[in-house]
């Protein structure tokens, strides 16, 4: 069975500082990994994905994520946080069984 863990329910970062939202996964096989963002009273929006190739993936709004196979991680990063980055972030994994498995989410708060 595949699973995703987001070890931090809440992350607080000062505006302008770098941010990291952590994600680890457990799968049998090669994973496809995704990050989605949810703003208040909205559905989830796609940020970025890792399918194959370069381990560093760049996505929307200046976010990037690094796939680390040895550590089974796919952490989301941004060099300089904006207040508008405050939202709920979900990591997800797919390994060929038709269902995308989501983590429990991390609430990111950027402090002005």
């Amino acid at each position, binding site marked *: 069975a595949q699973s995703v863990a*987001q070890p931090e329910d809440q992350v607080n970062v000062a505006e302008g500082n770098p941010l990291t939202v952590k994600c680890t996964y457990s799968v049998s096989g090669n994973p*496809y990994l*995704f990050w*989605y963002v949810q703003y208040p*009273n*909205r*559905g*989830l*929006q*796609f940020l970025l*994905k890792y*399918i194959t190739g370069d381990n560093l993936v760049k996505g929307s709004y200046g976010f990037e994520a690094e796939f680390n196979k040895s550590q089974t991680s796919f952490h989301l990063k941004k060099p300089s946080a904006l207040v508008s980055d405050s939202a709920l972030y*979900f990591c997800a994994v*797919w390994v*060929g069984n*038709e*269902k*995308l498995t*989501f*983590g*429990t*989410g991390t609430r990111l708060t950027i402090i002005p």
Partner: protein
Amino acid sequence: DAGITQSPRYKITETGRQVTLMCHQTWSHSYMFWYRQDLGHGLRLIYYSAAADITDKGEVPDGYVVSRSKTENFPLTLESATRSQTSVYFCASNPRLGTDTQYFGPGTRLTVL
């Protein structure tokens, strides 16, 4: 407008009543999904559909029924609502599995009294 829509956006009902949540997408995506979002659980898959007239259970299907007579519609019915079904429900679609992005509707907030 193109996209994926859900109705109603908010619903309050009573225990034991039947409730149907609607989902409509304009892309003709093959795959459609229903999730529920609860604090501490993230998103959990209720049912999904690979095409019209093809549906399958997800992680938490008990108490729910789905149908898909047309590609663009995927209604979710709570046959006899319970308080534990109070949640935010999201519909999603994508054209293919795996590498394709899932597109989410705006959600329906359901309260069962």
